[in-house]
């Protein structure tokens, strides 16, 4: 069977599986984190959530969690940085 190579333009479709963590930032004051698997650490300076491929960290000041669901939450506050887990090859 011939191994077809997926076109480069459809690479983003991988994301539709729903297993990848997704972060949507609205300015520097709000970040929606989807597809997490749990809260590991929460402090006003750092929010660490478990992801399928590691842990995602949101660093900032006066951070609060809003609309916390089993697989999604919003981090609100002064967000300085978002650290993604390093994908293992």
């Amino acid at each position, binding site marked *: 069977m011939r191994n077809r190579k997926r076109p480069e333009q459809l690479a983003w479709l991988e994301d539709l599986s729903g297993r990848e963590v997704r972060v949507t930032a609205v300015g520097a004051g709000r970040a929606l984190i989807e597809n997490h698997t*749990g*809260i*590991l*650490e*929460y*402090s*006003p300076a750092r929010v660490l959530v478990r992801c399928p491929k590691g842990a995602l960290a949101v660093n900032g000041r006066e951070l*609060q*969690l*809003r*609309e*916390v*669901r*089993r697989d999604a939450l919003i981090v609100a506050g002064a967000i300085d940085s978002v650290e993604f887990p390093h994908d293992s090859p």
Partner: protein
Amino acid sequence: MIRLRVKGLMLERLLDRALEKGARFRSVAREGPRAVVVDTDEHGFRALAELCERFSMQYEVVETRGPEALRRLAKRRWTLLPGILLCAVLLFLYTQRIWRIDISFESDRPVEVTEAEVREMLASLGVVPGMEKRDLDTDVLMLDLSAKSEEFSFVGARVKGVRLLVEVAPSLRRRRSTTSTTRATSSQARTASSSR
């Protein structure tokens, strides 16, 4: 919305367990290293409270707002809602009856019939305080009352809330007879004075 403060260690794990149980949190805010303030609904509150009791963690309800607060109030004071319903039903039943009968005489002329007599007439027609509104036909009442006595030149009846307003005007014929009597008396007096 229920706001509660949870104190203890490893609070993230507690939140995680509550999320696994289907809880949802509107807001989570740190209040020191060993406390979080959580805004949640009734289901989330129950899940958190159960976990706190299981793991011997302290929690306290800071405040309740919105429909949840109303629901909790209704639960705490369970007689309140039936009481309001009973009150509404009684008020409805109360307004279905006539409780006062007001009689007014719409004339400056001297009235031959007293208010008590009109009340007696109404009572004889079955119109008494406490009767049901639906049993009363004001048009029929006006006709019956007019037919009951010739003393009235006009009879009006209307229902206003729980009151029956009856307006009567004395008959003009009676006024005329009174006038003729007065005239006769005065002519007799004149005759008597002339004879003297």
